């Protein structure tokens, strides 16, 4: 296309000017990518810290019921949902350790569940924070770090658990196979984790559960998925809640942060786009003689406008490419040398949105100089040559 070739030639005829525009544009895009990545990094760090190692959706029995009736059927329905990452049925209840302080038994919460699956949510087997071995399903449990300290027990020690410390029944003896640290002392001081059958045995229940804990693939869709599950199950005996409902303040903060970063990114983008438009407007004046000559030779007004639209497109395209490279380097350097407790991550959608927005806005901004060039009268240019 000849007009594209003219656009290229005009750009190359002013090398230093073009290079400056390109660098300016690239810096704008790089800042955009960098800010966007940092904000995403902060956001995902906050989310991970707050809800990363916890369920996103929780199903519990309604207040006057102890267990979830027909939970196997419920699980069968839930497991068909493709948006769920982990579905964990749990039996948890308060029990007492009677052999350490027989005078005043210590109360703890036993959580019976499929421990390997539970680890996918709570990550208690993390090698940096777990001591000992995962328990067997016969007579072993793992307990929280603070609880071990409080009870002054260690791995291989035996504890006796009883649902009711005043009952005549004999307690169940279990061996501590490991000690975990969830990073939350409230949980570490009260949680005792076992396989499902051990909890059932201590609580004298026959395969009952009182909680289904779910992690979803996209945590921001947790509320939608929870509603979906509620609608599908249509069960009056259960309560379904999700992390968004319980963390409204965090969500508000995240939204505010996202909005402010979007505003910053938008204005950075606008400033480079306006720069392109103003530079092109100057180029139209600089190249008015050439436009006049070309029009005299038969270049149409539309072709003349296209020359400047193409210039806007070329500047924004190559400026964006350069900016993306520069932005990626900045993100990499930030991750390597900064001391903040999070990694900024370069997301594909950020790159795509920035690229499309930068090129689109630049072409739109080029419409003004393009229109000016198309409106130029040959006779005015020739008279003023």
């Amino acid at each position, binding site marked *: *296309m*000849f007009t594209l*070739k003219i656009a290229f*030639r*005009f750009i*190359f*005829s002013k090398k230093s000017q073009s290079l400056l525009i390109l660098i300016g544009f690239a810096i704008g895009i790089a800042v955009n990518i960098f800010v966007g990545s940092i904000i995403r990094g902060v956001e995902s760090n906050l989310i991970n810290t707050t809800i990363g190692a916890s369920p996103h959706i929780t199903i519990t029995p309604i207040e006057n019921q102890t267990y979830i009736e027909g939970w196997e059927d419920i699980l069968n329905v839930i497991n068909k949902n493709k948006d769920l990452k982990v579905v964990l049925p749990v039996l948890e209840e308060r029990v007492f350790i009677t052999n350490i302080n027989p005078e005043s038994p210590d109360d703890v919460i036993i959580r019976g569940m499929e421990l390997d699956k539970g680890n996918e949510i709570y990550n208690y087997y993390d090698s940096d924070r777990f001591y000992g071995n995962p328990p067997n399903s016969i007579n072993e449990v793992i307990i929280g770090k603070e609880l071990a300290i409080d009870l002054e027990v260690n791995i291989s020690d035996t504890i006796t658990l009883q649902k009711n410390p005043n009952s005549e029944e004999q307690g169940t003896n279990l061996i501590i196979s490991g000690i975990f640290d969830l990073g939350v002392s409230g949980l570490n001081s009260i949680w005792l984790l076992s396989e499902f059958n051990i909890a059932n045995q201590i609580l004298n229940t026959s395969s009952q559960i009182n909680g289904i804990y779910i992690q979803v693939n996209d945590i921001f869709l947790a509320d939608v998925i929870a509603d979906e599950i509620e609608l599908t199950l249509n069960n009056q005996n259960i309560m379904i809640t999700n992390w968004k409902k319980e963390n409204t303040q965090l969500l508000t903060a995240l939204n505010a942060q996202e909005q402010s970063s979007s505003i910053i990114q938008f204005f950075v983008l606008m400033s480079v786009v306006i720069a392109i438009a103003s530079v092109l407007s100057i180029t139209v004046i600089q190249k008015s*003689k*050439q436009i006049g*000559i*070309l*029009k*005299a*030779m*038969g*270049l*149409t*007004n*539309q*072709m003349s406008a296209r020359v400047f639209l193409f210039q806007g497109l070329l500047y924004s395209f190559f400026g964006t490419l350069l900016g993306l490279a520069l932005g990626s380097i900045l993100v990499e350097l930030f991750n390597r040398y900064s001391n903040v407790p999070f990694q900024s991550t370069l997301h594909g959608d950020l790159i795509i949105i920035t690229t499309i927005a930068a090129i689109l806005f630049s072409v739109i901004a080029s419409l003004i100089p393009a229109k000016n060039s198309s409106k130029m009268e*040959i*006779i005015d240019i*020739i008279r003023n*040559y």
Partner: protein
Amino acid sequence: MSNTIELLNITKDYGKSIPVKVLKDISIKFEKGSLNAIIGQSGSGKSTLLNIMGLLDKPTSGSIYLDGKKINDFNNKHQSRLRNENIGFIFQFHYLLPEWNVWENILMPLRIRKDNITDKMKDRAKMIMEAVGITDIAKEKIQEISGGQQQRTAIARALITNPKIILADEPTGNLDSINSDAVYNLIKSLNEEFNTTFIIITHDERLAKKTNRIIELEDGIIKSDTLL
């Protein structure tokens, strides 16, 4: 002989509050393949007339016919195509494009018309370059060749589309007398060789006498029209 271009009752006014009449009811015909000179004092309306003929400017009233077709009512796009295919321009200042070299400047009107340059077009460009004597500067930048060479390049560019008319506004106005003579002799030989209609504005009567017809303008009207 048939007429290439004909002007009928052309007037041109400049200014709105106090209009100045630059051309006053001009009617004139130019024959196909003729070599014409328009002379006159500065401000007599020579350039305005030429610009109107070349569709670079619009007349206030009147009609322009090219090969019998009224062309001044065409829309912008149509007029651009018509200029590209039928009219070549040579100006006092060469009006070459500094971003392109001699060869590219000559081919420019063809590229505007059609992006692909065929071998036939290239052969024509080489033939014209030979005719105007600039074969050896094809790859040179415009800024690096002499004034005479620049004007020869402009002439070659005007000829490349094989136009019906070439309009030249003081084509030697920026050249010394030796180069001026050379350019006029070149125009004369090209007129004979290609049978292209030339309409040349000049204030140099000596050069005007090298053409076949001299039209003298004075205060926007034709004072005299002499066949030589």
